[in-house]
């Protein structure tokens, strides 16, 4: 039974269809919301809101426009962005991305130092993603972390595939700039400056 059939059954009142659909899709929605917001509380709220929306307005799903998964991610995106706007208004000075601490524990690695370094690197990447503007963050989350195709991403974001590609390219450049050590950046910029001076 595919997602669309489950959705139809759920709308017809089948509770088990809801449970099955939830078990299939909640992980992706939760992770997407978590990667976009950096907050487990927001991720939980968004996941709940998405499935409540599906119960209420699931008939809005159009199979011609994409899969149920893409539909749910699109709904989740709207809820996340709305929630982030509210959070931004409520706590303008807060650096709330760290409020929940590290989102995952380091893996059990035989070498503690390597384990620590790896966890530190991943945490840096996560913070760098969270610091991106929303329009770049969402393409990184969808294409790089959620492994959604460019076409589906374009459908979720409501833009052209070319836009997705260009945003992803720009997002990666921004991430590289953020993750590079400060001294390396300074050295690069110094080289450029001197070259300009002697040109």
């Amino acid at each position, binding site marked *: 039974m595919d997602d669309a059939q489950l959705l139809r059954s*759920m709308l017809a*009142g089948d*509770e088990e269809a*809801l*449970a099955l659909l*939830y*078990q299939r899709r*909640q*992980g992706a*929605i*939760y*992770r997407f919301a*978590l*990667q976009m917001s950096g907050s487990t509380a927001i*991720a*939980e709220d968004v*996941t*709940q809101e998405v*499935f*409540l929306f599906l*119960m*209420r307005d699931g008939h809005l799903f159009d199979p011609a426009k994409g899969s149920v998964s893409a539909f749910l991610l699109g709904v989740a995106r709207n809820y996340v962005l709305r929630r982030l706007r509210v959070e931004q208004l409520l706590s303008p000075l807060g650096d709330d991305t760290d409020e929940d601490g590290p*989102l*995952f524990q380091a*893996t059990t690695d035989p070498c503690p130092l390597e384990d620590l*370094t*790896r966890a*530190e*690197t*991943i945490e*840096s*990447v*996560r913070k760098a*993603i969270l610091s991106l503007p929303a329009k770049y963050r969402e393409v*990184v989350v969808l294409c*790089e*972390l*959620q*492994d959604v195709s460019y076409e589906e991403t374009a459908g979720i974001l409501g833009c052209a595939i070319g836009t997705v590609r260009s945003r992803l390219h720009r997002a*990666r450049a921004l*991430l*590289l700039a953020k*993750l*590079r*050590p400060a001294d*390396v950046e300074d050295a690069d910029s110094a080289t450029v400056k001197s070259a300009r001076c002697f040109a």
Partner: protein
Amino acid sequence: MNSEKFDEEMLTRELRSLAAEMEQLSAPPELETKLREAFRARRVVVSLARRQTSSRYWWAAAVAAMLLIALSVIAIRWRSEGVNEPRQAQTQPAPENPQPLKNEPSREVVKYRPQSKPHRVLNRSVRRPQNSEVANHVTREVATDFIPLSYMNVASLQDGGQIVRVELPRSALANFGLPVNMDRYNEKVKADVLLGVDGLAHAIRFVQ
């Protein structure tokens, strides 16, 4: 990490690592329980709402049907009154001149509109005569076609005007080439004279 330079390849690797690390994350189990409860509650609310909606629907339909019937009755009465009023106005003699003089022909004036220009029928379900004034005469009386007077042509009849009911000596029939019953030669005959907008008599028809 700070010691090594981040390049595209490393970024891709680290992003994959992050995705793999987060792969196991999922919403807490109690969320499913809450959603199931919400689903059951919603199902009950929806079924109740449907019942209320259906009963409301029947009430609304009944009220609408009654209103429709009442409006139809009012419309039919109004139309029948609208048709009767001009007929009464025509049949009542004018109060200023209750009895016509014997020397002058008696007159009744009605508006004439040429039948070649039909009125727009607003309600096609109720068929009304195109010219109710003329039709009243037609239904109660037998009349000849309008005969254009000698100095007018048939085309001038299309301009409209007023019909004046007159009584003429029966001998006048002969002037228009109509047969005259000699037994009733002294009697008078009714005729409708069509006066144009210029005040001239354009045509005449004889009525029995």
